[in-house]
């Protein structure tokens, strides 16, 4: 079962079952590192219909380990799309009204060019030959996709966590193409603590002997243990102490007493091990290195002379930021500093902080207050733009 999933995931990295657009040598992707990625491909999904005015497109940006399958079954796990609570027919982001686009980011592992994709020049997976990509590169690739789809202006760009970083990058670099921006549970830069957690994850992957200097696919091995440990450490940061206590406390796992050993005595240990092991079946270890690095490098203010407000100067994009009280990965203060910068830039901005003990992961869960905020924001933005049919 696990091997079968890994086999499917490997295929998806080059021949995705979703839609895919391949850009040839005439359309290279220029990267922030100064390197050029060419040829390259973007795997994506769409839901709903683009209207004749091409005014109802919503771009969803996925988080660190997300993918393009936002509102349909994941081909590797068979599980529902990662944001189906929010997106679909009759849902808050109603695919009867909106044309929803979600692409796998550059550097990802489900069909957009990434380290597990076959490099056409060598016939082998890119591995660490893949240049480092940034949030800016991911967005530049998405711009090419949106151009390919013939869309000038997106009604909305929406995403949480790393997806929220892409939203901010979109709004900053392409303000005239973004009518509304919804960055959720995110920050304008990755904090030192967040970089630290990512470094722990990367070191765990690279310390696994099966990583083979990044050439594990050709070697026929997989750095499962290292990647699982990385996921376990990261997963803790997506939750909160209160939620962990509420769900697991100090409860024992299928046993009446401590075993005086290093087996998973506690439910929380068993839960984390399960999270780690199920992750390695669906995610490429090298891709995890690239994704975490892209987040670490993100610092929107630094790109604008240290003044975040300058990243949004003169924007007409309408913003709605959302944070969660128990999110310690991207605490409310991160969102608030973006709000202050947007205020200083004279932008239209709403900011909703939602009370929950579910931590960073709350943005992926059924949070009624999140949904009513998104719904109210999008409808009023549609009215403001004279798109009554979307309101």
């Amino acid at each position, binding site marked *: 079962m696990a091997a079968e999933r890994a086999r499917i995931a490997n295929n998806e990295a080059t021949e995705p079952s979703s839609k895919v657009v391949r850009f040839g040598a005439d359309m290279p992707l220029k990267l922030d590192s100064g390197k050029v990625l060419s040829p390259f491909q973007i795997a994506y999904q769409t839901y709903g219909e683009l209207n004749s005015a091409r005014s109802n497109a919503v771009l969803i940006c996925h988080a660190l380990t997300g993918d393009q399958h936002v509102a349909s079954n994941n081909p590797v796990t068979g599980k529902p799309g990662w944001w189906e609570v929010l997106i679909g027919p009759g849902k808050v982001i109603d695919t009867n009204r909106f044309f929803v686009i979600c692409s796998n980011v550059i550097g990802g592992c489900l069909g957009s060019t990434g380290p597990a994709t076959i490099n056409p020049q060598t016939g082998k997976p890119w591995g660490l030959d893949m240049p480092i990509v940034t949030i800016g590169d991911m967005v530049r690739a998405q711009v090419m996709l949106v151009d390919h789809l013939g869309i000038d202006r997106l009604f909305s760009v929406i995403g949480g966590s790393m997806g929220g970083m892409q939203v901010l990058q979109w709004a900053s670099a392409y303000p005239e193409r973004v009518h509304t921006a919804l960055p959720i549970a995110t920050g304008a830069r990755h904090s030192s603590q967040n970089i630290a957690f990512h470094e722990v994850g990367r070191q765990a992957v690279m310390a696994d002997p099966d990583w083979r200097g990044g050439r594990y696919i050709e070697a026929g091995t997989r750095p499962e243990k290292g990647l699982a440990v990385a996921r376990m450490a990261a997963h803790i940061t997506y939750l909160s102490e209160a939620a962990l206590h509420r769900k697991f406390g100090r409860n024992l796992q299928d046993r009446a007493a401590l075993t005086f050993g290093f087996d998973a005595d506690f439910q929380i240990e068993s839960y984390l091990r399960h999270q780690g092991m199920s992750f390695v079946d669906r995610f490429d270890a090298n891709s995890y290195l690239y994704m975490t690095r892209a987040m670490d490098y993100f610092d929107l203010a630094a790109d604008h002379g240290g003044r975040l407000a300058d990243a949004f100067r003169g924007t007409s994009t*309408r913003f*709605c930021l959302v944070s969660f009280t128990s999110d310690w990965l991207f605490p409310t203060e991160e969102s608030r500093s973006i*709000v*202050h910068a947007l*205020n*200083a*830039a*004279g932008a*239209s*901005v*709403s*900011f*909703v*902080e*939602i*009370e929950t003990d579910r931590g960073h992961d709350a943005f992926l869960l059924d949070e009624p*207050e999140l949904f*009513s*905020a998104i*719904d*109210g*924001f999008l*409808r*009023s933005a549609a*009215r403001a733009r004279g798109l009554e049919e979307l309101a």
Partner: protein
Amino acid sequence: MSVNSNGPRIDLQLIADFIAPRARVLDVGCGDGELLAYLEQDKQVDGRGVEISQRGVNECVARGLSAIQGDADTDLVFYPDKGFDYVILSQTLQATRNPREVLEQLLRIGERAIVSFPNFGYWRVRLSLLFRGRMPVTRDLPYSWYDTPNIHFCTIRDFVALCEEVGATVESAMALDREGHSIGVSMPWWFWNLFGQQAVFVLKR
């Protein structure tokens, strides 16, 4: 509180009357957005709200208003000079820690500031102190002294003095009775100070 068929609260209606159509408006202490919703509907303003209670902000955003959680005492500094045509501070001045600084910020951010506040010189307030010797608890000031959010009460005359201190010009002013109706437009300050239950000022600097 919501915009019902009878329109908004009378004091909010009075504030709205000062505002030109399609103006840029910042409502500081916007609550659940009643005034902003009315202004957007009736005057097609480009409205923004700041509200200290997160519940109020979330309600504003859910009803399609642009609002952020923020504190008048600390968060107004982030707004650019003259970024708005009107900055409204409705029934909030008395709850700020530093009313003078807040007023300065309003005058900096807005071409005009509209400030409404309860008048502590109102005769019922005076009577309560004079005869009962107790801090007044009235319909409009329902809190006891120990749990009130209103920490900086002033009278109309006090407020006029503050306006002079900060160099604000009073463009327009009115005192309202208990029902929110404007009283005696041409009455002297002392009359307003005694019979005005609240006051609305339009200031410019």
